[in-house]
């Protein structure tokens, strides 16, 4: 079981308290009606499916907040977590390995 750091609670807690919430930094288009069918399809369904560092969202059930994380999908290691709305964190050296 992973230990995950909630950036809102500022505490590292067991995975049981969290749920996965899909890839991060995919913002809902401001005006969906302006999108072509293909663009809308890509927004709905197309994901990077990264092998390695992956930007994703998690929710801390305890405080109810959604936050962003950078997790390596190969090692299943959390490289960092940060609040929703914050800019995409750069890949660290560890993540780039």
């Amino acid at each position, binding site marked *: *079981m*992973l*230990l995950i750091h909630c950036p809102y609670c500022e505490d590292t807690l067991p995975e049981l308290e969290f749920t996965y*919430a899909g890839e991060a930094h995919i*913002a*809902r288009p401001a*005006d*969906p*009606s302006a*999108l072509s*069918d293909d663009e*809308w*399809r890509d927004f*709905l369904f197309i994901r990077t499916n990264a092998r390695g560092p992956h930007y994703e*969202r998690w*929710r801390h059930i305890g405080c*109810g*907040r*959604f936050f962003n994380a950078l997790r390596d999908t190969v*090692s*299943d*290691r959390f490289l960092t977590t940060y609040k*929703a*709305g914050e800019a995409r964190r750069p890949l660290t050296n560890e993540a780039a390995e």
Partner: protein
Amino acid sequence: MSRYRISGKGRVDHSAPVSFTFDGKTYRGLRGDTVASALLANGVHLMGRSFKYHRPRGAVSAGSEEPNALIGTSRGKGQFEPNTRATVQELRDGLVTESQNKWPHLSFDIGAVNDRAYMLFSAGFYYKTFMWPKSFWDKIYEPVIRGAAGLGKSPTEVDPDRYASRYLHTDVLVIGAGAAGIAAALSAAQSGADVTLVDENAEMGGSLLSDPAVQIDGKPAWDWVEAQLARLRAAGVRLMTRTTAIGYYHQNMVGLCQRLTDHLDNPPANAPRERMWRVRAEQVVLAQGALEKPLVFDGNDRPGVMLAGAAQTYLHKYGVKVGDTPAVVTSHDSAYFAAFDLADSGARVAAIIDTRDAVRPDLLEGARKRGIQVLSGHTVTTTKGRLRVKSVRANPVRGTHVGAGRDIACDCLLMSGGWTPSLHLFSHTKGSLGWDAGSNTFLPDRKTEACEIAGAGRGLWGYEAVLADGAAAGLRALEGLNRAGHSAAFTVANDRPGTGVTHTELPTDGNPGKAKAFIDFQNDVTAKDIRLAVREGMRSIEHVKRYTTNGMATDQGKMSNINGLMIAADALGKQPPQVGLTTFRPPYTPTSFGAFCGYLRGDTFQLTRKTPIDPWAEANGAVFEPVAQWRRAWYFPKAGEDMHAAVLRECKATRASLGIFDASTLGKIEVAGPDAVEFMNRMYTNPWTKLQPGRCRYGLLLGEDGFIRDDGVIGRLSPDLFHVTTTTGGAARVLTMMEDYLQTEWPDLDVWLTSTTEQWATVALNGPNALKMLKPLVEGVDWDDFPHMSCAECTVAGLPARLFRLSFTGEVGFEVNVPARHGLTLWTALMEAGKPYDICPYGTETMHVLRAEKGYIIVGQDTDGTVTPQDAGLDWAIGKAKKDFVGKRSLSRPDIVAKGRKQLVGLLTEDGSLLQEGAQIVLDPNQPKPMKMVGHVTSSYQSTMGHPIAMAVIEGGFDKMGETVFIPMPDGVRKARITSTVFYDPDNARLKA
């Protein structure tokens, strides 16, 4: 005294006999025995039959790696356990055990014909032998093969035992309490760190318990172990025996399964049988030691053939001589010590057959002193003996030439193919392994966790080296905690260091194609199976493993993986590291389901949510059904009524006068704030801006993909306050979805979301007399301005309430919400006030029937995550003028507007029979199979109208009104006509009454 027990020897209690049965026969063992050691003490080597060939098998090891000696144990009703390793199960008084996979007897097993027909059962036999004719597969081949193969029988009764679970946080967890583990724990414990030392055996000490002549710091091994354990205890180290580290997970979480009562004659009542520990350790020291490898030669599986180290353990730990005339075959020095110890205990060692040409002079001298002949540069080509080995054939090897053999009589054969570090837990962490060409074995290489590996587990041999390594590992763990300690040194006398060489199958002068040289004893995989798999195109070791099933048995290839790899590599013409090792996965040893479940079973499997009105329902004979985690009143049968009769009565009473229903489980979310209406507009399909306070509206929630996610009536209590209701099962999902949008897409909106599901008790009143009955109880409502789809904050029966006028039945209806603590009071008051109207409590089934008669959908029953509002006939609920809402863009995607989508329609059967929910629908019942299925029945009920009704999704259903479709069922094809989903009062006349 049993025939093979040596008086006074071993760690068993010679003054405490214990009796047990094996296959119905009573045996005596001693306190401290395992089932295997006690049977061996009685001269019993035959303990089971093999998986495929039903070959007679005996214990080959003395520990948890045992592949052969699997038995069933029974402690009472429901307490039968199959596939228990006889080498692990401790003896206790009255233990009942039985052998497995044999018929009629262990010594005469009909299934052993498979052994003669072995040609049929080679690698991949499943895929090629029984292909023809096709029709034979289901009826003949598979049942017969399944019947003949297999290990123990699964128990069928509920396990009455209790299982416990606990969490533990510790600074240093040391796994394995042999020499290395004890040394590591001593190092780690010196600076006050919290240290835990665990071992899977009943006693700590590891192989030192099998090597009593070794002296450490001037003390005999056993005394030294005892003294160190006392020191550890005094230092506050947690010592846990019978505790197996089953898995090593992320961030140093280790699962420990502790066996608590299986060894006790009379376990305390209610004591848990096993306890699962979830341990989070700052540092882990893996000191699990090494596992001895068998040698691979024809007949290496006969009862009486066992690992040399196992024989040494039986001798020293249990005082059991595994035979009078053992022979030894080895490629490693360690087997000599087993031979010497047995000779010193009175056995006549027939020969030591060494595959190596050169043998260490001190070992040769030790053999000579004891009168043991050593045949160096020899191979073993076969063994003889049906139920017990009688002789072994040894042949000299010169280069590649195998010379003439001679049979050497023996009553047991001790083998050693060297030692493999126990890499399992390290592999769980995805730590990489490095090939050590010198010792021909894999060793732990790059670590992924904060762990140290010590002792034989990283290829060291000899106690002096292992103790020093353990102490150093414990110190490094301490440094990992930013603590300091002193390094320890140990002096060892009578040490038994050694080296060896690694083989594929041993050379033979016979036909290798006929040799039954076993690698995986439990799955009956032989060397030629591996070579066959390679010949047939398997290149990856993972494919070889699956094709041959090597290493796939319950022992997970503890003995077989390296031998299998060596032979596969040889067959492929590659070096072992290029072929690679298969992955070890948790659990390390078979673990009971009970230990995983812990407390989460029966009543405590998951929580049961009950409404405030639940006690009334229970007292009034409700039959309950689970809905999500709630238990809900399903129907209220009167004496003599079955479900159908009760539901029909409840339906009719509601339609005729007045019904009352506990709707408290409905999800409720309060959406509040200046931007609440904007938020609602964005989330739900419907327009909310013009909804006046005091009015409510049916709300439809989509996913961004345009499919229906949830629905419910939503009341606007004030300009900035919405009372949202959701489906019972969807409450948490909807709140999470709302939170997601609010937090991450529209954080600028000033809105607060609060779950109020459990804060409100909700009672629904429906029927033509509902208004009449309710009116006198209500204060604070202007009845002249309270039409259908209104809501108000008021009092009902003197209780503060939120009153909704709405209907899920087609009758005049209300939902009264009061604070949950008043729920039962409200219900009781309404029941009393309803007496003049023959008020009838009804349950969820009646609710379903009444709503279906009106064509009201239930999300999750009539929809399945692929249904759009258009598909469900709910276009009217879409705010067409709204620029955007969640899912809107998807409603114009090409596939969503395409013709031929499944659409929700009504169905009436021609013969008036009830359809089955889930039944598939076809347009032409005479088409060839497989038929084209155009939809399925989603809801089906007996109705109040004298005939059953059903709803279904059917391709292009809206354009097929009045057409006939067919529903093929096992007892015949049903005919049904497509209708509107509204079966009852289509003009809503009753709502307006």
